[in-house]
């Protein structure tokens, strides 16, 4: 029973980490319908910034969150203004896919060239080594903190999207862009904010993941894939959906590894994804 509970707690926490990596994509893909293949690679950039903040300036990854958030927000804005905006106006889906795929290749190989392919991790994260024990169940301290930050971020984002005017405008744009423009809103500006915000959340995710794993030019690939799965599974545009989907993915991963075999964990994730889509093909879990 202990092992079962430990697996559940660890799986849910891991799932919250995945949700944090996916939440920005909920806005960008779910609301704005932009397929950003470079999502995982922006995450990788954030991880590098957090890593170097620690190794060169001694800044704890938790405290580098404002730095990574800010830098990624700027990067997101630049990406939108120079590339995404033009591609959206062309209204050709293939262009979007190809362009963001190109950004992904550029970022991966650019970091490969600048930072070398070396794997880098932070040894002995200050204050967060070891695990906490809740009634005999071990949960790594780092994963606990990441799950907490993820929850706070998701709640904050939910509040922003559903309770603030700007957030509601973003939702409105997803429903009917032309109508939003007709009532006098600068749609381009709102899109810029939404895209930048989506990329900026990867800053938070990057600093958090740097406490848990290593960074290398290719580390974004699998997290990006999991993010796409979480958003599609949870339902496009639904933040609670993404959280639930992330947790489902994390728990499926841990339980499959423990009770069936670790070599099947990613197979199981995609089987669960397919089953849920067969059940609710248009909306995922909580999509609208």
């Amino acid at each position, binding site marked *: 029973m202990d*092992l079962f509970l*430990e*697996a559940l707690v*660890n*799986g849910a926490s*891991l799932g919250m980490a995945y949700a944090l990596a996916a939440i920005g994509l909920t806005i960008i893909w779910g609301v704005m319908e932009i397929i950003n293949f470079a999502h995982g690679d922006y995450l990788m950039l954030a991880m590098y910034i957090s890593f170097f903040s620690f190794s060169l300036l001694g800044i704890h990854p938790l405290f580098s969150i404002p730095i990574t958030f800010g830098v990624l927000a700027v990067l997101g804005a630049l990406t939108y203004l120079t590339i995404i905006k033009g591609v959206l106006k062309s209204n050709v889906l293939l262009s979007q896919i190809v362009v963001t795929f190109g950004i992904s290749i550029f970022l991966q*190989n650019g970091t*490969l060239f600048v930072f*070398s*392919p*070396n*794997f*880098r*991790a*932070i*040894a*002995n994260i200050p204050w967060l*080594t*070891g*695990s906490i024990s809740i009634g005999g169940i*071990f949960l*790594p*301290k*780092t*994963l606990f903190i990441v799950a907490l930050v993820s929850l706070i971020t998701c709640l904050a984002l939910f509040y922003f999207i559903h309770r603030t005017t700007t957030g509601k405008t973003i939702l409105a744009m997803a429903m009917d862009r032309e109508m939003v423009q007709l009532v006098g809103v600068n749609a381009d500006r709102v899109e810029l904010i939404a895209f930048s915000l989506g990329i900026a959340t990867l800053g938070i995710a990057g600093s958090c993941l740097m406490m*848990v*794993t*290593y960074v*290398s*030019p*290719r580390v974004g690939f*699998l*997290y990006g894939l*999991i993010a796409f799965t979480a958003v599609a599974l949870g339902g496009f545009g639904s933040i609670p959906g993404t959280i639930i989907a992330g947790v489902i993915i994390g728990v499926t*991963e*841990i*339980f499959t*590894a*423990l009770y069936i*075999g*670790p*070599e099947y*964990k*990613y197979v199981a994730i995609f089987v669960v994804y397919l089953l849920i889509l067969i059940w609710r093909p248009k909306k995922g879990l909580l999509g609208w």
Partner: protein
Amino acid sequence: MRQRNLLAGIIGIVFASAFSLSSISVAAEKVIKVGFVLPLTGGLAETGRYMRAGAEFAVDIINNKYPDLNLPLAKTEGIPSLNNAKIEIILADSQGDPNVARAEVERLIENAGVVAILGGWTSAEIKTGSAAAERLKTPYVSGGGSSTDLTRRGFKYFFRLCPHLGTNAESFFDFIGDLNKMYNVGLKTVAVLYENTEYGSVTFEETKRVVGERGYKVVAQIPFPKDTTSLLSEVMKLKASNPEIFVHAGYVSDSILLTKAMENQNFLPKVWSGLTGYDNPTFIPSVGKTANGACLRGFFSPRLRKDVVQKVNQLYAKKYGTEINMESAMPFNAPFVLADAINRAKSLDKEAITKALEATNIPGDQTIMPWDSIRFTPYTTPPGHTHDNVSSRVLMFQIQDGKQEIIWPFPLATAKPIFPLKPYDKR
């Protein structure tokens, strides 16, 4: 008429000598193209970087005069028996993918016209690459690649220098046996965590074979997907099985994840042994003190007490800013073996080179590896081993205070083994 014939004759002679002169000068300038397949991009790009340094450094030594180095052809320039023709390495990116490796080997042989192939890191890519080379009747000298299957295919053109996973497993349990005697303990239970492609799977099979032969017991066998995002659940499983001996067959990325997960869950068996990845220069800085006590099987150390090793290491460190490591050392050997064979063959004919490779007999003091010689087993039909290096051997290291010490074989050791390991919560 006579004058015309005479003139034609003179012109003919002039052309003929011009041609033969130019072909002599072409021969003198001739460059020997050798293909080198390695992962320059993808998940193993970091390893590829070191491999490239090792191979290019070796070719530099062969092509130029290094009178102080006791390595084959170091004291001369190029290949003496072929008018000092120089070796030119043509790199090809396998991306760590076996299908790409195969395609690149074919391209190197058919389009680039190389006389031989070197390289490959993962056994999976060496398997496919060497199968292509075999089909195209081209010698392939592999400095790495530890899957036992590689030399059990009855291939005529494939030669492997390093120990394979069977030798590896036997050496490891020789070490455990010696440890049991030295400390008077009866270590018996074994758990194996392995990445689920060729290298990991074969490590497990060979470990299981030796465990069965020598009376140990496997209490957990855990395959995991390469490039996994976490090893949390795998370590939970390991902890539940409570092994005394833990063997991990993976690469540097999962070695980092594993070490963190082991510390988080306070899992530390009496003997912890990794294979590839633990000696990567980024491993210890990424995990710090947590790695202390980890054993690893290695093929090489820059601290080996051999004259040629110290000299090569100094030159390498000067050129590349870091000591030579296993990922550079293993590809370093193959160019010498190939160049030595070409020199003895006195020809670029692939059959002649292959025959010369079979007759290779390089003494142990002319290699940086801890081997007594480089000699290949003869050709034999499967499932026997063809063209393995008879004298290859594995060393056991242990990370002590952030440094790798050679702990076995005991006569070659630079430090005593730390045993048993202190649990994380008691450090």
